């Protein structure tokens, strides 16, 4: 009888345990080994969320960025996707289209006031949201520009193409620099479409026609794109920028060491410039080549996998993560841009008068998402190759025509990528 009572008691305890047990949610994060504050902050976020409620327990699994996208593809194939996914903004439409992700389903009022680059939309639905954004600026020194009678541009009045070209020529003529401008050609991959497609867009072209995302004809090889290509090639032909074989060390420290007068670089590289040059440091908007001053937007974001059995829990975690205090903590820890004004006010660098406040303005006013299409992952690689080829002297029109053909063939072979 005693044994029966004990067994019954154990069964009841077990049932109670199940009823009140936490549901486990797996979260995949791309930054293993990033050796900065980001991974620690994600860890802290998970710890805080787990302590804040008793229904769900988020388990963090980290991956090296190099392998992350492949690991997600393999897991999707094997039906092993986690509940919460970390996804790079421009990649998100591909994952949504491929069925890896489901719409976020959170109240859009919660995203009001977010920088556009921090929200991932596909086919009219929000699939992901970022805890930060990034922005690129023309890094310069006030003393250098003033000494050479070069106007200091503003958000309202950026350099025109004529002004920018003249500034480069003036700076080259001084003979004080290895090159007047550093574009960061030592960086490869996503840097090309992220940093350089805004120049093309400012000329009036684009990587693909965004009206329906079904062709790159005219946008990538029309008159505007060819004008951009010729300008781009001239930068290298005239020795205004380092070529594709730029030394990575020069990219890191060339501007600080005075090898370059200007540097096209991201906000993540801004603090060393501020520390080195203080008030002399300037972060200027992109030149306006005729169709507005444009920079790239969107960084890593959180979304919910299509196979998650607990989307409510995943949603609860993401809503927890986008509280201003976490957005501010990520910004303070990583130097990246907080996605809301409210969070920016809580940060050291992006609050009013902060050393990097200008980047928030740049992101808010000029950020343009990379093409929001599943085909972007192919288009980005085609664009990168075309720009590298042109920089190395390839015929502009032929190269862009070939790029258009490759992009169009990819779109056709994927039946238009499901654009509604």
């Amino acid at each position, binding site marked *: 009888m005693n044994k029966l009572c004990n067994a019954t008691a154990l069964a009841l305890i077990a049932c109670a345990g199940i009823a009140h047990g936490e549901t486990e949610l797996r979260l995949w994060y791309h930054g293993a080994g990033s050796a900065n504050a980001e991974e620690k902050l994600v860890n802290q976020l998970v710890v805080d969320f787990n302590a804040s409620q008793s229904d769900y327990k988020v388990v963090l699994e980290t991956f090296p960025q190099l392998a992350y996208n492949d690991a997600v593809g393999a897991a999707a194939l094997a039906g092993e996707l986690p509940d919460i996914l970390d996804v790079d903004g421009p990649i998100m439409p591909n994952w949504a289209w491929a069925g890896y992700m489901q719409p976020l389903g959170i109240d859009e009022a919660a995203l009001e006031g977010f920088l556009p680059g921090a929200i991932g939309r596909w086919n009219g639905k929000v699939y992901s949201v970022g805890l930060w954004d990034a922005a690129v600026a023309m890094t310069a020194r006030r003393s250098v520009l003033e000494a050479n009678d070069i106007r200091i541009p503003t958000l309202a009045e950026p350099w025109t193409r004529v002004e920018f070209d003249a500034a480069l020529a003036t700076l080259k003529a001084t003979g004080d620099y290895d090159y007047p401008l550093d574009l960061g050609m030592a960086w490869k991959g996503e840097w090309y479409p992220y940093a350089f497609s805004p120049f093309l867009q400012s000329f009036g072209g684009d990587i693909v026609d965004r009206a329906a995302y079904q062709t790159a004809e005219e946008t990538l090889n029309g008159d505007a794109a060819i004008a951009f290509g010729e300008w781009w090639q001239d930068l290298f032909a005239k020795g205004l920028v380092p070529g594709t074989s730029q030394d990575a060390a020069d990219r*890191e420290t060339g501007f600080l060491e005075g090898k370059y007068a200007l540097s096209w670089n991201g906000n993540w590289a801004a603090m060393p410039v501020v520390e080195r040059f203080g008030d002399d440091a300037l972060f200027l908007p992109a030149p306006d080549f005729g169709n507005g001053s444009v920079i790239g937007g969107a960084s890593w974001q959180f979304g919910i996998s299509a196979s998650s059995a607990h989307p409510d829990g995943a949603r609860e975690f993401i809503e927890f993560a986008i509280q201003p205090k976490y957005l501010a903590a990520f910004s303070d820890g990583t130097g990246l841009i907080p996605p809301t004004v409210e969070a920016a006010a809580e940060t050291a660098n992006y609050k009013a008068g902060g050393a990097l406040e200008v980047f928030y303005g740049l992101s808010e006013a000029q950020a343009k998402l990379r093409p929001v299409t599943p085909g972007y992952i192919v288009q980005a690689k085609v664009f990168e190759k075309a720009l590298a080829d042109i920089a190395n002297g390839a015929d502009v029109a032929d190269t862009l025509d070939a790029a258009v053909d490759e992009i169009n063939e990819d779109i056709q072979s994927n039946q238009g990528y499901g654009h509604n």
Partner: protein
Amino acid sequence: MPAVKTDNRGLRLVSRYAALSLVAVVFIFPLLFMVMSSLKPSAQLLLDTKSLRAFLPVGDLSLANYSDAFARAPIGVFVFNSVLVTGVTVLLCLFVCSLAAFAFVFIEWSGKAVVFSILLATLIIPYETIFIPLLLMASQLPWIGGDGFELGWLNTYRVQIVPFIADALSIFLFVQFFKDLPKELIEASRVEGASWWTIYRRVVMPLSGPVIATAAILKFLFMYNQYLWPLMVVQDESIRPVMVGLGYFTDQLNVPWGEVMAYLTIITVPVLGFYLSLQRVFISSVASTGVKG
């Protein structure tokens, strides 16, 4: 005249050593570059690549890259996992493949030639082409373990080991070697009533040191260098191998080259150790069978 003869011999010796030294230098320089670079800051490392300084212990030398590398990634865990997965796979491979080869060479059974031909044909299929179906299969395979019955092998050591135990190349190496063993030994053992297992264990394997070393080294290198398969099937950091761990040292834009070189130096140690421990047997095997590693 004898003096002239001696001079020629000396000249030939010098020439031979000069040529061999040149070849040795070609092979040693990448390793030297890796080790020297692991001691330099990234900026200096990149600057030094433009000159012979890249191969010399000059400039600002320290072990900082090693401490940074250990801070960035659980290197000890990765090395342990790789050594474990590789070691177990190599041992099981040697056992299974030598048994298979034994059956192909010494035991008569119908269809042997056809099966061996099919086996050899699999050599031309790159592993990468079967990874997707293999992944789907591995995600559905049953297993009975500590948690009872479960489906799916992903995120385990066994999924990194089992698919690679048997391979056609190792069987082929064993078959070629077994064919050259004196048949009389086997026949005499059979006449004396020895079982196939006894012959395999007591006669054949003790004579097969060179081919065991060759197969072990080739399998070791293949397994230790695995990247794509563990990337696809392992999500848990605690069972990740060294090659996937290399990804910890790159991000979207920057590569800390000094740390990369430190990491590569660390993970090269087990490979060099394994190779050096089997070097003599491996060389004698290459010399006797003409197999190239």
